[in-house]
């Protein structure tokens, strides 16, 4: 079981978390072209490397977490509560 470091609860089994998706800025719904909007909806960076992701600590503190995770090694280099600011 992979351990994920919750900034609140400490390292916990991945089974407690929900993966939400890559973090991506929501385009301005009033101005976005279909192309831009659907890029936001469907296209993914999907890197084999560091990915900026949104997770939910579902069975723990219930907080959404912004995580920088390496998709090959599983390492996590940064994690913070999604509600608290931070460079996106």
């Amino acid at each position, binding site marked *: *079981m992979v351990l994920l470091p919750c900034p*609140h*609860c400490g390292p*916990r*089994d991945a*089974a*407690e978390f929900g993966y939400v998706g890559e973090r991506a800025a929501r385009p301005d719904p009033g101005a976005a072209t279909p192309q831009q909007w659907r890029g936001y909806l469907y296209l993914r960076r999907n890197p084999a490397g560091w990915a900026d992701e949104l997770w939910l600590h*579902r*069975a*723990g*503190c*219930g*907080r959404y977490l912004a995580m920088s995770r390496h998709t090959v090694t599983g390492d996590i280099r940064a994690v913070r*509560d999604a509600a608290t600011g931070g460079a996106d």
Partner: protein
Amino acid sequence: MAEVSVEVSATDCTDLAKVLVRADPGGALAAALDVPFGRAVRDGNDALVVRTAPDAWLLLAAADLATPLVRRVEALGAGEFASVVDVTHGHALARLTGTTAAVVLAKLCAIDLADPATPDGNTFRSLVAGVAVTVVRDDARPGRLTAGSAGATPAGGRDARPGRLTVSPTASLASLDRSDALGSAGATPAGGRDAERERSYLLLCDRSYRQYLRDVLTDAGEEFGLAWT
């Protein structure tokens, strides 16, 4: 290995009052409650204040205290954005007590239950038999919350700060300990160093899992003769 012959018992404490507090961790209410995340603190004789999330607290108290407790806490948070909600009916609550309580729980829960990781007064929310459960280690015998709202044994636990949340001079908590003797030697996961004491855990989950929680505790405790009281 694990030569254990010990008692472990469980009690359904669902009837206890439960009040959820949501507030800014930097606000006045948070300061008044003054319980760090991951800790549960006995406040006077009236409530066990459990910090369940960075911006959430759960207050457990005798069954008839929900309404006064809500009022009291609301008063503490007046002027800031805070929510105090009576969630007494939303959760099932069980207490697992005994020298093998940790061994039973270790069959269901992945968190390290040894003292260095989860000492008395610690709380965490994690999966127990696949269900999200708030676990509070609450060994302190005096002032222990159990089912019902019977007579009082006023005595502060080690974290007790009398008076802060006192609701009324007459209502206070039950401390319905059945046994006076500490349990005999028991086993703990890997080692047995910090085991031979009686431990007590409060387990809180969504109310609809009440029977399920009871069933899995019974099953896991079978080898130690777990009994419900």
